[in-house]
């Protein structure tokens, strides 16, 4: 009888302990999942909803530096650049490590690139590279800055460096693809290289609507209309970029007309 009571007490204690463990960790897991949900919304281009998710999360946890990064991404998606930059500054103020600082610098560089302030974007990338020279991201962002400045030589050089450091860096392949596609305007042989790089991007990120569009354009210029049609249809079916979807429809109509 004594043994039976001891076993029951032991089982009860284990049960209570288990409940405590689950309760203590659940809030953290739920917050993590909410961030995941927000990131999913960002990836789908549903920036308004993502903004709402991250604002709620920041209200309940104003010291979490990661959340400002995500909210800046949402503002960037909504093209509210000034707000995005100020979110980066808040996040940078709260960041307590070099990696976090690096990530915010990169995001700022992306925002300035989108505004068209390439000078500032380039300066920020250089700062990020000097902070953490063995991370790939800043090199690939600087490559995109060089690309927009039409400095293709340095753009290609930064792409190679980024790929050497991280062969899964999508932006580096993307920029390489853009450079070869640009060169394809003069030398059609370059289009194949562009497609190769876009293939790598799509393998890494099968939902990258911009790259489907760019690859579709490269196929179209090569005269491979069937592959081009498939890519433009993919842009429309993913549907996260209304502008690109519209352009794709127009190109599909044009191809049909040509046939």
């Amino acid at each position, binding site marked *: 009888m004594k043994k039976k009571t001891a076993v029951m007490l032991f089982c009860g204690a284990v049960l209570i302990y288990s409940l405590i463990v689950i309760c203590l960790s659940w809030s953290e897991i739920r917050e993590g999942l909410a961030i995941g949900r927000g990131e999913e919304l960002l990836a789908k281009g549903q920036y308004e909803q993502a903004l709402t998710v991250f604002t709620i999360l920041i209200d309940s946890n104003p010291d979490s530096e990661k959340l400002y990064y995500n909210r800046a991404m949402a503002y960037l998606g909504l093209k509210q650049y000034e707000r995005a930059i100020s979110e980066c500054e808040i996040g940078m103020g709260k960041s307590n490590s070099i990696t976090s600082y690096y*990530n915010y610098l990169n995001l700022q560089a992306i925002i300035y690139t989108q505004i068209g302030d390439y000078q500032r974007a380039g300066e920020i990338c250089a700062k990020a590279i000097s902070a953490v020279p063995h991370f790939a991201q800043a090199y690939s962002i600087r490559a995109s800055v060089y690309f927009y400045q039409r400095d293709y030589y340095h753009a290609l050089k930064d792409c190679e460096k980024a790929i050497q450091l991280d062969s899964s860096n999508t932006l580096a392949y993307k920029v390489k693809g853009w450079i070869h596609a640009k060169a394809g305007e003069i030398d059609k042989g370059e289009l194949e290289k562009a497609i190769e790089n876009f293939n790598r991007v799509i393998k890494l990120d099968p939902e990258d609507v911009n790259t489907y569009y760019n690859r579709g354009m490269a196929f179209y210029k090569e005269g491979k209309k069937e592959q081009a049609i498939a890519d433009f249809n993919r842009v429309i079916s993913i549907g996260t970029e209304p502008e690109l979807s519209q352009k794709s429809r127009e190109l599909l109509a044009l191809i049909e007309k040509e046939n």
Partner: protein
Amino acid sequence: MRYFSGSQNIGILLLIFVFMGLQFFMLDRPYSLLGDEIYYVPEAKSILNHNGLLHPEHPPLGKLFITLGIRLFGDTPFGWRFFPVLFSSISILCLYLTCLRLNLPRWAGLAVAFLFAFENLSFLTGSMATLDVFMLTFMLAALLAFLDRKLVLAGLLAGLAALAKLPGVFVLGVFFLYWLVLERENWRLIIIPVFTSGITFLGLMTLLDFVVAGVWQNPLITVQNMLSFAATLSSDEVFGISINSEPWEWLVNRGVIFYSYSPQRIALVSYTVLCLVIPAVIYSIRGSFKKEKQAVIALAWFACTYLSWLVVSLIFHRLMYIWYFYPVVPGICLALGYGMQRFTGMAQDAGNHRLLISVKTGVLLYLLVHLVLFILLSPVGIPLVKWVYTG
């Protein structure tokens, strides 16, 4: 090898086959660097390109395995993670053989291996191109050799564990505690492994440093540099999130890290193991007083792989992360296997058939819940974020 012959081990082979199948199936999902892979994969490529080490704060052996993977299979997730998966599979086998060596019945050994293989944190860390998996595999292999009384081999493997990552040296603590509790009169048990591991560590450190950096370095200075770097670690994060946690927080799954959401890769310990850590340890303490080998090893493993971090945290305030719990998991699984075997044995001894059936059903149910949790938490199932937010 004598424990590993005949058809009775088909279960463990099947388990490892399924484990490897799942790991290789998930290997390139996501096709990007996860967590500390952002340090070790570029470093492996740097070694491959004869540019030396980028992060000399860790010993080179684990990095060399990642380098070899990239050399053999290319700069792809398969290349980065091939050897980690291979080593984690070997670690399951080592744990199973350790159970047999400790006279646990085969079914209990299989249950321990099953718990370890399908524990979320172990499954996740066992497929990442980081150093922990190499360290743990060598530690488990060293323990097996030690229990087999192959003391030179045990020391050699302990040295290799420390060469993969410095905390691998904790396995010597396990040997020490075993010696202290069970065989204090046999000095050879502790002297030979300590001596051999020291020689292996210092000798190979010099050689491997030469291989990766091209210069001969004094291994003592290298170790001193590593330790002084480790002491300076005071803050870090992954993509902006503060991810460090204290050892006592691991016991309630605080400091969880979300490496990726789809596929889901969340560094958290399966609740089926975590909720039983304290009961398993208490039961092992009881068994250790009775000088039961299984209990002593389980407790010594827990003390060396977990309590050591607790001490380091309290004294040095060093930053720690939940994946440091990965090497603790085999010890807990072993303690759980010991408990299962003891409970079944008690029911058998009582001659109560109904009780025996109840205990066996309980064990099976527990293992089933463990599997369900694995499917829910691991990258193999539908991501939790979809479960929580769909509908």
